[in-house]
């Protein structure tokens, strides 16, 4: 088991290096001279050349990449913001907790609402309940999160005045953004749970359980559910990634001080190291979450667990 976990962690490293490579490449090929960006328009040609030498900006591509990795790993330095001139890493670390909190609440809501709805939908397949839930899920999937957020602001903040439309410090401030972000996720989880349940419910071993004279409620809850939820766990891991990127848009709308908002600002001001830094950070978190899901999977599915005993 430990071996499995260690192996997965080991595999993670080349993936992260790969992501860093993509990020770095994108940064490298973006038009604009980093030296000029950081030093400003007033800088002399000499100052710029010195800066370029000092930062190694004249070296070949792979040398620069090597430096990038080296600096990132040893000093946590992934560049400087063109705007604030401060290290990207600091800005991100400061902003990350808000993003994580938002995504975390969103996934929690998705699970708490999505799974029961999916189960009920599957059990009552073809009923009115099922149809309504499925249509709602479709609508939830189809609504752009930035629009839903704006709608919620119009309704709950402007017209009803119940909930605040910005900030993230109080509980009431967290409600709207978490819900807006979670809408798509709730739909995905509901649909996945439903289809997984339907598949499981038609399996032979469910028939076996019934033929033992087992009560239907126990058949569903004990036999079907556990099997059906296994793929949903994986889905939640993937959804977290969606939520992280969705958070970018949500933070922008609700003025939440997270990584997303920093990135949107950075896009507007062409502060590319910041943008790419945000991408790298989110990608790393996403990979770690997926790793955790894989490990969890191995614990809950005995077929996988046995492979790695």
């Amino acid at each position, binding site marked *: 088991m430990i071996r499995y976990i260690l192996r997965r962690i080991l595999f993670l490293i080349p993936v992260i290096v790969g992501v860093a490579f993509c990020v770095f490449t994108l940064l490298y090929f973006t038009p604009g001279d980093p030296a000029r960006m950081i030093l400003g328009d007033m800088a002399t040609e000499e100052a710029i050349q010195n800066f370029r030498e000092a930062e190694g900006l004249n070296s070949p591509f792979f040398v620069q990449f090597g430096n990038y990795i080296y600096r990132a790993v040893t000093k946590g330095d992934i560049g400087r913001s063109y705007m604030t001139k401060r290290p990207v890493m600091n800005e991100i670390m400061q902003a990350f907790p808000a993003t994580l909190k938002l995504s975390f609440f969103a996934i929690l809501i998705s699970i708490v609402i999505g799974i029961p709805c999916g189960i009920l939908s599957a059990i009552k*397949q*073809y009923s009115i309940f099922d149809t309504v839930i499925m249509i709602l899920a479709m609508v939830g999937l189809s609504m752009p999160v930035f629009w839903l957020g704006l709608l919620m602001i119009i309704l709950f903040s402007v017209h009803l005045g119940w909930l605040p439309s910005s900030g993230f410090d109080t509980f009431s401030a967290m409600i709207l953004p978490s819900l807006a972000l979670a809408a798509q996720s709730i739909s995905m989880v509901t649909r996945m749970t439903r289809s997984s349940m339907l598949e499981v419910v038609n*399996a*032979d*071993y469910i*028939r*076996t*359980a*019934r*033929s*033992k*004279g*087992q*009560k239907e409620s126990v058949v569903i809850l004990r*036999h079907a559910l*556990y*099997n059906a939820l*296994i793929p949903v766990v994986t889905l939640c891991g993937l959804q977290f990634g969606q939520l992280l990127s969705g958070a970018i848009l949500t933070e922008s709308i609700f003025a939440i001080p997270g990584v997303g908002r920093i990135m949107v600002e950075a896009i507007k001001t062409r502060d590319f190291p910041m943008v790419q830094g945000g991408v790298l950070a989110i990608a790393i978190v996403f990979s770690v979450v997926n790793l955790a899901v894989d490990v969890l999977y191995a614990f809950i*599915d*005995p*077929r996988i667990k*046995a492979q790695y005993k």
Partner: protein
Amino acid sequence: MDNINKITRNEKLLEINNLTIQYETDSGTVHAVENLNLNLGYGETLGFVGETGAGKTTTALGILRLLPAAVGEIKSGQIMFEGEDLLKKSEAEMRAVRGAKIAMIFQDPMTSLNPVMTVDQQIAEMIKLHKKVSDSEASKLAGDMLELVGIRRERMHDYPHQFSGGMKQRVVIAIALACDPMMLIADEPTTALDVTIQAQVLELMKKLKDTFDTSMILITHDLGIVADICDKVAIMYAGRVVEYAGKRELFTSPTHPYTIGLFNSVPDIDDDIERLNVIPGLMPDPMDLPTGCTFHPRCVHAIPECAERKPETVETSPGHFVACSVLAAKKLEMGGDER
């Protein structure tokens, strides 16, 4: 086959009278089972023979009332078990019957076991449903059952995927027999297994059948298995029983044209033939069954009456019943007295 239940000796464990089961699908109604009559005596093993699609599994599921709820419906008939009509029981009463009085073994052992529960848990579940025992006691009994089917007790906490196909089927048998049911329905229990394993599992079933004195309906399409383990045989075609007899009688004098066709199609290793004997034609589409006798389109002996009327059941010798209009007509010619 209408009179077999009245003529033969009474005190049957199971009597099915005029059972009709249909499936509703988008493309039409599937007539899976039509006016089926069947019975099983105490301690008997009945071979229920027919091709794929004849309606054997549907009948079995019908007995336990486990048809897929949305599509399968028992339209009419009676299923008398120990003198009571199962079709009139409530769901709660049926649950008390399933597993405790009638147990079933399904065809594919690979998918019949819950992949995330250990085998002892699955056997123990059966035990705890019908017997008032503690968890530890149930676990111990589960271990006993495993040993009975030839699996080492130490393996009780293993998961199904850790067993081979044959061993999985043994676990399935262990579950089925855990509460000592009066009747076991085995739906092609060895079809999905290798030939060598088939023999082992059959041997096990024979041994257990005697140990527990269980009556059994063995669904199969393999006449060899029938010869090995069954006392009586019912041949099923397109939703009906077309011939019913004791094993010896059936093998020595198969009468219905379909049965004869079945026996003829088994190749003899000593025969030097160029082509296999087949029954010409195909089994009919259950949504579009032939009128009259369902076999008439493929039957060499068919007379015009065969397309018009459902065939009557004729008792050609004591306990040997055949559903055939041609035979019925011949009997009338001969004066209509039973031999």
